[in-house]
């Protein structure tokens, strides 16, 4: 099942309306972090390091609706923490759908079976299941055995019930491109609507700092993964953003394109960096020093970032910015990116991921996890 035409039409007309109105900075998607607490402790996550009293708090449904309406964005992405831990998540999703928003509910799926009765299948609701790769890779990535199986079970259940389902995968340094391609075959064979992929970003507070991808490594990895594509692969992402990941395009960041709202307010400047908070969306737009962020700013925190929250809006803007952008997007949708050099590099690649090599001999004693 592809992305509904109504969703594509909603997004396209929304972007064109912003352009016709001469609006320089507008949001495409709101990242609505309804809470920070989570039932996993992934090594790459920098979202959950807070005191207990912060982790216990959550947005009310009214706060969610107000923020989303204030922004005007047509799509709402609900990440976390784990949003299914929110006791009113059903009410929040229902209220957003009633407002005509396309909702992507991002979950690790551990609580899906017991919470599924809160939701009804709708073209406005997509479950985005966190899956970072094949079984061993995913379980290592989220630091919990058995999580892959639960996510796969949840995908099957959701599809059986008629829900829209996508996967969301974050790839870190050491990802095995052959394994990633096998994984993509697997999830497409299951019947998901599409896949979403993005390079990991080094959150300042993320425990796993050494495995985030630098830009050159990311481009080579994505070139090997996304060239010579299987016909069955579909992505729930801008085709030009995927070209950006493969190093075929260069974009500057559009941090206001996918802004973040959470219990502290509107996060400056983006989903990944925390440089303070604004109390309203307008204040975020008006008072953030946007020139201080992005590759061209010289800000060291931005130099390695290729994450969708900053660059996918740039790609969408490119699509609707000119006739050339529209044509490039149309071509990209049908392009399998045949690339003999990338295929050769893929075949020669012999990546041994972190979960498959024992490095204890190289490691100096450090503080341990719990």
């Amino acid at each position, binding site marked *: 099942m592809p992305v509904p035409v109504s969703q594509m039409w909603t997004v396209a007309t929304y972007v064109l309306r912003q352009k016709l109105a001469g609006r320089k900075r507008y949001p495409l998607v709101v990242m609505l972090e309804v809470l920070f*607490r*989570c*039932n*996993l*402790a992934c*090594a790459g996550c920098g979202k*959950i*390091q*807070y*005191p*207990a*009293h*912060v*982790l*216990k*708090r959550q947005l009310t449904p009214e706060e969610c609706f107000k923020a989303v309406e204030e922004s005007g964005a047509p799509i709402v992405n609900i990440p976390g923490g784990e949003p299914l831990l929110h006791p009113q998540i059903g009410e929040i999703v229902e209220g957003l759908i009633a407002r005509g928003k396309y909702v992507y509910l991002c979950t690790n799926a551990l609580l899906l079976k017991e919470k599924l009765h809160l939701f009804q299948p709708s073209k406005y609701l997509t479950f985005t299941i966190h899956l970072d790769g094949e079984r061993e890779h995913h379980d*290592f990535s989220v*630091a*919990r*055995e058995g999580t892959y199986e639960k996510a796969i079970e949840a995908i099957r259940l959701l599809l059986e019930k008629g829900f829209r389902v996508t996967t969301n995968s974050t790839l870190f340094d050491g990802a095995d491109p052959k394994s990633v391609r096998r994984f993509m075959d697997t999830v497409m064979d299951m019947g998901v609507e599409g896949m979403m992929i993005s390079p990991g970003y*080094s959150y*300042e*507070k*993320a*425990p*796993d*700092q*050494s*495995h*985030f991808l*630098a*830009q*050159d490594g990311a*481009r080579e990895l994505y070139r090997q993964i996304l060239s010579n594509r299987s016909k069955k692969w579909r992505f729930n992402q801008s085709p030009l953003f995927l070209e950006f990941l493969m*190093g075929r395009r*260069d974009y500057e960041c559009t941090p206001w394109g996918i802004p973040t709202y959470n*219990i*502290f*307010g509107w996060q400056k400047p983006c989903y990944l960096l925390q440089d*303070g*908070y604004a109390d309203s969306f307008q204040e975020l737009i008006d008072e953030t020093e946007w020139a201080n962020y992005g*590759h061209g700013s010289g800000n*060291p*925190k931005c*130099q*390695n970032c290729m994450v969708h929250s900053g660059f996918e809006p740039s790609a969408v803007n490119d699509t609707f910015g000119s006739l050339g952008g529209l044509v490039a997007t149309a071509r990209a949708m049908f392009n399998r990116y045949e690339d003999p050099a990338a295929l050769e590099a893929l075949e020669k690649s012999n990546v041994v991921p*972190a*979960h498959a090599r*024992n*490095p*204890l001999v190289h*490691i*100096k004693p*450090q*503080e*341990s*996890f*719990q």
Partner: protein
Amino acid sequence: MTSGDVKPIANAGERASLQGWIPELASEEEIREALEKAFDYRGDVTITRKDGTVVEGYIFDRKPGKTLRESLVRVLPKDSNQRQSIPYSEIAALAFSGRDTAAGISFHAWIRRYWEKRAAGESYDLAPETHE
């Protein structure tokens, strides 16, 4: 240098924790530096105002201004939903009193644990913070 040559940023996850630190706030420079660190800190702090009142909570925002009077931190108190904005000029003392929730966690620690547990035939699961 092309953008593709950029190397990874510093290993922030492994830096020394500021937990327990009580900075000197004698000069304007010390005050600004300490409050910037407090904003970056992933634990609660305790602020004592010059009028003697005390607030313990999480600093989620700071707005540096030209003067200390125009600069402020925004705090989410530990025991209340009422956010407080406190001008730098009103702060008499600052303590990094809460546990640093980002300290001591590193990829090396994680992978060492992962392999130790696997070698022992045990579960390598990590549990999230408890919220009680």
